[in-house]
Structures are given as C-alpha cells and as structure tokens.
C-alpha cells in the first residue's frame, strides 16, 4: 500500500472514524484528570485557610527492644500549612516529677492534614513512669 493511498484514506475518514472508542475513553479520562487537577488545586488555593501547622503527637505503642524500650508515635498536622523538620521531644519523668530521660527525633515533613510516624528509644520503662511527647518546633518548607 502506498503512502498516497494511506493519507487519502485517512483524510476521507472523519475524526470520529479515525479515533477508536477506546481512544476516546482514554482521552476523556485525561481531560477529566486535567480539569480535576486544576479544579482541586485552585479550590485549595482559594479556600484553604492559611492556618499554621498544628501538630498533635500520639503514642501508638511501647515495645521492649534490645536497647531498651521503643515508644512508637504518630504526629498529625491539623493545620493548613506544611511543617518541615519537625522536632519531637519525649520527656520521661518519675512520679515526683523529676526528669529521668529526654529523647528527641526529627520528622522530615508533615504535610497539612497528614500523618507521619516515628519512634523514641528509652532505657527506663516508660510505662511505669510519666511520658510526655510533643512537637517542639518546625521550620517552613
């Protein structure tokens, strides 16, 4: 089949005939994704309140590990802005309120409305002492 035949064939067909149903479907998905992306991001740009990061830390488990006690936690950002390099500090104190051990770690990014998790390792048992874990600072990304 010569090239001339081919192109004249294609020209004789309408756009609908040249384009298969499956192709229409994929193109439609693409169009929806573009519109949805732009719509969703624009919505966020206009309506998202610029509230600062609001970091909430919760202990999820305490486990015995070879080097002591592992306290696993997750940190959730309820604010609208992302916090970077979030410092987490866990202070362990005895029943008299005297500080026994303080451990810190850093979480790279906690995006708005998102969760990250991590762990702190103690020598003393956190379950028989008083443990306070909180986010003590962050930087803007």
């Amino acid at each position, binding site marked *: 089949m010569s*090239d001339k035949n081919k192109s004249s064939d294609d020209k004789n067909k309408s756009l609908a005939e040249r384009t298969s149903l499956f192709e229409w479907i994929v193109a439609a998905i693409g169009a929806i994704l573009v519109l949805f992306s732009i719509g969703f991001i624009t919505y966020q740009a206009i309506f998202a309140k610029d509230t600062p990061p609001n970091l909430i830390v919760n202990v999820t488990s305490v486990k015995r590990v070879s080097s002591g006690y592992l306290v696993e936690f997750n940190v959730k950002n309820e604010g609208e802005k992302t916090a970077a390099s979030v410092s987490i500090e866990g202070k362990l104190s005895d029943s008299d309120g005297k500080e026994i051990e303080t451990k810190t770690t850093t979480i790279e990014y906690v995006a708005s409305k998102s969760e990250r998790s991590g762990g702190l390792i103690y020598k003393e048992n956190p379950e028989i002492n008083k443990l306070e874990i909180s986010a003590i600072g962050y930087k803007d990304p």
Partner: protein
Amino acid sequence: MLGKSSKASSESEINDNFLKGLSRAFAGAIIFSYPILMTMEMWSLGFTISPTRLTIYILLSIPLLVGLSYFVGFKDTENIADDIIDAFVGFAVGFVASAILLYIFGLIDSSMSYYEIFGKITLQSVTAAIGAMYAHSELGNSDGDFSKDQEKKNDRLNYWGELFLMSVGAILLAMSPAATEEMYLIAFKMSDIQIILLALGSLIMMHAFVYTVGFKGGESMNDETSFWTVFLRFTVVGYAIALLMSLYLLWTFGSLDGMGLKEIIKVIIVLGFPAALGAAASRVII
C-alpha cells in the same frame, strides 16, 4: 495512525493499533519521568509548591502536549482535534504511570491528605506525559509506517517548531535537577569566572550539537548557511530558551524566592547547562 490502514480497516484493528501506541506511551512516560519520581525534593514539592504556580504549570502543559503531538506524537494526526485528543491521552498515561510508580515506591499512602497525594502525582504527571508523547519517535515503531509518518511530521517543522521542540527538550532534562538542592550548592561553590566558563561552555556545546546533528525540516547545514546565521538563529536563541525554561522551572518550584539577583542568575546558568543539553538534544531525540 500506527498500523497499516486501509478502507477495510476494522474497529478492532484501530483499537489494536491504539493499544500498541498506548503501551509505547507508558514506556516513554516511565523512561522520562523516573528520575523525578525518584528525587526526594519532588515528593515534598507536591505539597509545598504554591497552588497558583502548580495550576499555571498544569495549564501550560496542555498546549505543550498538543504541540508535541503535532510534531512528534504517538500517532499520525490529521488535524488539531486529533492532537488535542492525543494530548489528553498523553496526560492520562502520564498521570496513571506516575500514580502507579509513586504507590509502588511507597511514596503515597492512606495516612496522607488528598492534597499531598494529588499534588505529588500531578506535579510528576506533566513530565511523564511529555515522555509519553516522545515515546513514538524515541522508541521507534515496529511497523514500516514509522518513517512515512515521521517525514510528514518533519515537514511541519518550521523555525518556530524547532524553537518549540528546543524548549520542550530543555524542560525535560532540566526538570529533575531543578528541584534539587544541588543546584544552589553548585552555584554557591562556583566562582564568577567558573560561572562565565560554564555559560560559554554551554553555548559551545549547543553549537556543536546543532552543527553536527543538523536540522530536520529543510534547515540542513549546507555551505550557504554561514556560521553566524546558524549560531545566532539557533544556538544563541536556543541557549536563551534554555535559560528561560530554567528560570520558569525554578520559579515554579519556588526555589528562587528570597534570593538575590546575582545568585538567581548563577543558579539559572547552572541549571541552564542540562537545559541547554536538552534543547540541543531535542534535535537528536525527535
């Protein structure tokens, strides 16, 4: 159209050809976007990027994809409506490929907000979509129609088309380093003399590419085209495009915010190196 078409070509044959094109598009999307999918800064940019700049980026990607389809896309296109359909197919492929890879790499999960997940995928899907459009020319075609389709597309390539393809090539290669900290680090480490050397080096490198590779679409290097004509029309303009694309990408990623003018220019020239390479190599790839 990818395969052989005749008056008897059935719906299933068209579908078959489209499926082949689609697989090729996925391959192209992955080849060109894996560097940014595997770059740490690109993941966090998904949610730290300014929403306005991300919206502009996605909006601009549509005419860019339509243009790419017109010049190199994964099927023979008869009119602009074909190209628009192709562009959206490319975007769908880019989006799905990015989403799958990000999920497999463990970079998106249910503890993340929709905005974080969505931002990550969208930011990467533009590059993946460009890769999908490149796929046709880059990975070749299994049947004999390739050269004919390609010749036809090349006929469309005038001077402005060349410049358009240069800018796409620049974006493609500058995209993954643009987001990384290494760009400023290199710029900070370089002395003013070294920056000037890099700018001159980029220009010479571009000209070597432009000269040896030659031009499709009738812009061949013969004796009539003088050194200065080619140098000014293609190399200098091409380098300017590379620098502009670097500026645009750095601005989009918010990398230039709060920086002094001199540092901005230095970073642009550093990123201009891969951008110039991409602009010049667009001649080889396409």
